[in-house]
C-alpha cells in the first residue's frame, strides 16, 4: 500500500475546509477560556467573532467545486450555501441568546462552546460526501443539541424534553448506523459518489439500508411519523436555541439527505416514498398545529409542516427540486429565527414560555409595537403571503413537483398551507385584536422589560431580509446553479 501521498494534500484540504476548522478551534478556545474565566462577558463575543469570520471565509467558496480530505467533504456549491446558512443562523442565534440567557441567569460559557461544536457538526453534515462524515457530523450536532435542550436544568419541562430528545435521538442514530452498515455490505463502499455505480439497480439489502437511513434522516428533520419529539423539545428548550435547532440542524440534515439522494441512490426510485412522507407530514403537522394554544408548540408543529413542504421538492427528484429545497431552507431559517426571537422576548413567566398560552399574549402587539409588527412579517411569511419570501419559497418547492407530474402532491401542499394560514394569523389576531383582561399575568409588570438593542437588530434584519428575498430572486438564482 502506497502511503506516501496520504498527507500530501493536507494543507490544501485544511484551507478548503477553513470555516469548519475555525469554528471547531473557536469551540476549544471557548472551553479553555471559560475554564479560566467563568461566565466572562467576552465568551459570547469570541463565539460571535469566530462565526462571523467563518462566514466571511465561506463566501468566496460559493463558486468553488470539489472535494477535500480524500473525498470525505464536498467543497463549494450547495455545500457552501448550506454552510453559510448554518453559520448565519448561528450568528443570529448567538445575538438573540446573549441577552436572553443573561436574563435567565444562565449565561454560562458552556452554552457558547456547545453552539460552536454543534455548528461544527452541522457544517460537516452539510458538506458530507461520505457516510462516515455524515454520521460523525450528525452525532456531533445531536449530542450538543441534547445538552442545549436541557440547559435550564432547574426547569422540569426542560429536563423532560432533553431526556426525550436524547433517548429518541439515540434510537434513531441506531437506525441510521444499521442502514449505513447494510449499504456498506451491499455496495462495498461508504463514499456517496461511488455508491450509485456500485449499487446498480440495488439489491434487497441495499434498499433495506436506504430505508433505515431514511428513518434516521426523517427523524432529524422531524417528518411524520418520526416527529413525536419535536413539540416537547421545542417547548422545553430555551427559545433562541430552539430557533437554532429548528433551522440550522434541519438545513444540515436536509443538505445531507439531498447529497445522498443525488449522489448515492439510483435515480427515479425514491419519489413515491418521499411523496407519501411529504403528504402525511404536511397534513398532520398543519392539522395538529391548529389546536395548539402555546405559541412555541404551535411553531413546533409548523416546523414539522415546513419539513413536509421541503420533502415535496425532494420528491420531485429534479435539479429544480433540490435547488428549490435549498432556497426554502434559507427562507424558513430567516422567518423561524425571527418568530422564535419575538417569542423569546415575550416570556415573562421566566419558564421559557412553556406555560404561556395565546390568551396571555392578548393585545401585546399594540403595547410592544416592534415585537408585534415584526411578528406580522414572520407570520405572513410563514403562511406564504406575497410579497414576502415565504411565498417565493413555496413557489420554489411546489413548482418542481408539478413539473415532475406530481400535481396531486402540489395540490395537497397548497391546501395544507392554506390551512396553516389559520393558526399563523390567529397569533396576529391575538396580538392586535384582543385586549388583555384585568389580572392577566404579565400585563403590567411583566411587560416592563427593555428589548435589548441586539435583539431589535436581529428582528429588524430578519424582517428586511424576508422582504428582500421575497422581491428579488438573487438567492433563488444562486441555488439554481448548484445542481447540474
Amino acid at each position, binding site marked *: *500500500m502506497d502511503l*506516501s501521498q*496520504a*498527507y500530501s494534500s*493536507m494543507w490544501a484540504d485544511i484551507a478548503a475546509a477553513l470555516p469548519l476548522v475555525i469554528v471547531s478551534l473557536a469551540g476549544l478556545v471557548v*472551553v479553555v477560556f471559560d475554564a479560566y474565566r467563568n461566565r466572562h462577558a467576552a465568551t459570547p463575543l469570541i463565539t460571535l467573532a469566530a462565526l462571523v469570520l467563518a462566514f466571511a471565509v465561506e463566501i468566496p467558496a460559493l463558486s468553488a467545486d470539489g472535494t477535500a480530505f480524500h473525498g470525505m467533504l464536498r467543497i463549494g456549491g450547495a455545500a457552501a450555501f448550506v454552510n453559510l446558512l448554518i453559520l448565519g443562523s448561528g450568528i443570529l442565534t448567538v445575538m438573540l441568546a446573549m441577552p436572553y440567557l443573561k436574563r435567565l441567569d444562565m449565561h454560562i460559557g458552556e452554552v457558547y462552546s456547545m453552539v460552536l461544536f454543534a455548528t461544527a457538526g452541522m457544517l460537516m453534515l452539510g458538506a458530507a460526501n461520505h457516510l462516515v462524515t455524515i454520521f460523525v457530523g450528525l452525532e456531533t450536532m445531536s449530542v450538543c443539541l441534547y445538552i442545549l435542550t436541557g440547559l435550564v436544568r432547574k426547569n422540569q419541562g426542560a429536563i423532560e424534553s432533553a431526556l426525550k430528545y436524547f433517548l429518541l435521538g439515540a434510537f434513531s442514530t441506531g437506525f441510521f448506523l444499521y442502514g449505513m452498515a447494510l449499504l456498506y455490505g451491499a455496495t462495498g463502499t461508504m463514499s456517496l459518489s461511488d455508491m450509485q455505480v456500485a449499487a446498480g439497480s440495488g439489491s434487497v439489502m441495499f434498499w433495506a439500508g436506504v430505508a433505515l437511513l431514511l428513518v434516521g434522516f426523517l427523524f432529524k428533520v422531524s417528518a411524520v411519523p418520526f416527529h413525536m419529539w419535536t413539540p416537547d423539545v421545542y417547548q422545553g428548550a430555551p427559545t433562541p436555541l430552539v430557533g437554532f435547532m429548528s433551522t440550522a440542524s434541519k438545513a444540515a440534515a436536509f443538505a445531507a439527505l439531498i447529497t445522498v439522494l443525488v449522489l448515492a441512490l439510483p435515480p427515479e426510485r425514491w419519489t413515491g416514498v418521499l411523496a407519501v412522507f411529504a403528504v402525511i407530514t404536511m397534513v398532520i403537522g398543519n392539522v395538529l398545529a391548529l389546536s395548539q394554544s402555546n405559541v412555541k408548540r404551535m411553531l413546533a408543529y409548523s416546523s414539522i409542516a415546513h419539513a413536509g413542504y421541503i420533502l415535496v421538492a425532494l420528491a420531485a427528484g429534479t435539479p429544480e427540486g433540490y435547488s428549490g429545497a435549498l432556497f426554502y431552507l434559507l427562507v424558513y431559517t430567516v422567518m423561524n429565527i425571527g418568530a422564535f426571537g419575538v417569542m423569546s422576548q415575550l416570556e415573562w413567566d421566566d419558564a421559557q414560555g412553556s406555560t404561556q398560552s395565546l390568551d396571555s399574549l392578548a393585545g401585546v402587539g399594540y403595547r410592544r409595537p416592534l415585537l408585534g409588527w415584526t411578528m406580522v412579517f414572520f407570520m405572513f411569511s410563514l403562511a406564504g403571503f406575497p410579497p414576502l419570501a415565504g411565498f417565493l419559497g413555496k413557489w420554489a418547492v411546489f413548482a418542481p413537483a408539478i413539473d415532475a407530474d406530481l400535481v396531486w402532491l402540489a395540490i395537497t401542499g397548497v391546501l395544507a398551507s392554506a390551512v396553516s394560514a389559520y393558526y399563523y394569523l390567529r397569533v396576529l389576531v391575538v396580538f392586535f385584536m384582543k385586549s388583555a383582561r384585568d389580572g392577566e399575568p404579565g400585563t403590567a409588570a411583566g411587560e416592563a422589560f427593555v428589548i435589548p438593542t441586539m435583539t431589535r437588530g436581529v428582528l429588524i434584519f430578519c424582517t428586511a431580509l424576508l422582504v428582500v428575498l421575497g422581491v428579488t430572486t438573487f438567492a433563488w438564482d444562486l441555488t439554481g446553479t448548484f445542481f447540474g
Partner: protein
Amino acid sequence: MLSDFYPLFVQLAIAAGLSFTLLKAAALIGPNRHNIVKRKAYESGMDPIGSAHERYSVKFYLVAMIFIVFDVEVVFLYPWAVSFKEFLEAGAGPGVMGVVMLFVIVLAIGLLYDIKKGGLEFD
C-alpha cells in the same frame, strides 16, 4: 461462507450443553443441606449493611466518564501505534504524528476544563 462457521456453532452447542448438564446434575444428584453458616458471605466477604439502592454522588459518574474518554483514547491509539511504522517508512510520519497529537491535545483540553471546573474535587 456460512459453512466455515459450523464447527464454531457445534462447539458453542457443546459448551452450552455441558455447562447446563453439569449444573443441573449437581443440583439433582448432590446433597442439599442448607444451614445458616453456609448462606453467609464467603470467606473474606462482609455482611451487607443497608440497601444497595442508595443515591451516589454525581462525582462518581464524572470520574467514570473521564475514565471512558481516556479508555477510548487508548483504543484509538493502538491501531495508530501498530501502523505508525509503515507511515514512517513511507515518509508520512510528521503528518500522522501531527494528527494524533491534535487528537490527544483536544482530549487534554477536556481534562483541563474538567479540573478547572472542579470536576475532580471531592468535598
